[in-house]
């Protein structure tokens, strides 16, 4: 299964999906100029990964997606929800896939929007509260 690595920029998050090292992470600020194109690549990769998991002979889960945004615009919100729905469908197929939703300790809005996305995607998230140095508390 191929990796998907996209470097972080001032307006788009870094993406690090690496099944070989069991690391799955999106982090940073999400307001890319072309939101559909940016997230279509991610969701396309997740579709491929879903097929890979269902046909895989050797992959050992669990698969833990870490979503660590410090900001995303309203257009990105729609695609982030789509991504979480896809992860929910992975779980529905019996895969041990989860989402960890990271938020800064004082970012009440990021925690709240995480809860809303979790509810709409029908997928329980694990919430990771970060200290002011960016590391989990």
């Amino acid at each position, binding site marked *: 299964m191929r990796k998907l690595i996209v470097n972080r920029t001032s*307006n788009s998050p870094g993406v690090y999906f690496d099944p070989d090292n069991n690391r799955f992470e999106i982090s940073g600020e999400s*307001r890319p100029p072309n939101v559909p194109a940016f997230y279509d690549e991610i969701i396309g990769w997740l579709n491929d990964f879903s097929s890979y998991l269902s046909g895989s002979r050797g992959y050992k889960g669990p698969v833990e997606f870490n979503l660590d945004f410090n*900001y995303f*615009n*309203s257009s990105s*919100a*729609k695609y982030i*929800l789509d991504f979480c729905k896809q992860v929910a469908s992975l779980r529905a197929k019996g895969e041990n896939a989860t989402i960890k939703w990271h938020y800064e300790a*004082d*970012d009440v809005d990021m925690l709240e929007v995480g809860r809303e996305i979790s509810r709409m995607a029908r997928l329980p998230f694990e919430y990771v509260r970060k200290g002011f140095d960016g590391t989990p508390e």
Partner: protein
Amino acid sequence: MTESPGFLNYTGPVDYNRIDLLLNDLKESPGFMTINKVTGRRVYAIVVECLENIIKYSAKESTGKLNIEPAISVIKRNNKIIIKSGNFVDAYRTDKIIQKIDEINSLDNDALDLMFEKQINKTNEKNDNGAGLGLIMMKLKSGNKIAFNVIRLKEGYSYLELTISVNEYLP
């Protein structure tokens, strides 16, 4: 009435590179550094939506007769942060935007949450300029109605000015 300058004040063309520069200016402004982080994040989010709306919905005024540039400003007045943005819009689009703002302004937070949920779950449409969520988010994050002013111009254009007042977050 007390007014603190020093957040953001820009008039000129807007593209994605300019948005990056303006957001850096906002974050580094003396005014921004004095407000609490929650309020700051909300202001930042609304400024992003305003600037992206300028790119997505600005009319391409080609006659050169209407010498008015897009503009954005952020100031603090009393306990509110006031974000004001303005740009040309095609006249045919103006009424749709106004109708949407009026609808959003008429809803309480519960109804607005439902509207947000309905909108975010809509299937993405090709050539859709945005998710249609920006104006809803502006009201939810600011805690206030979106004020607007429309100047009808000749040649099929309007100048649309939005004003969003953000309440300071009290922990």
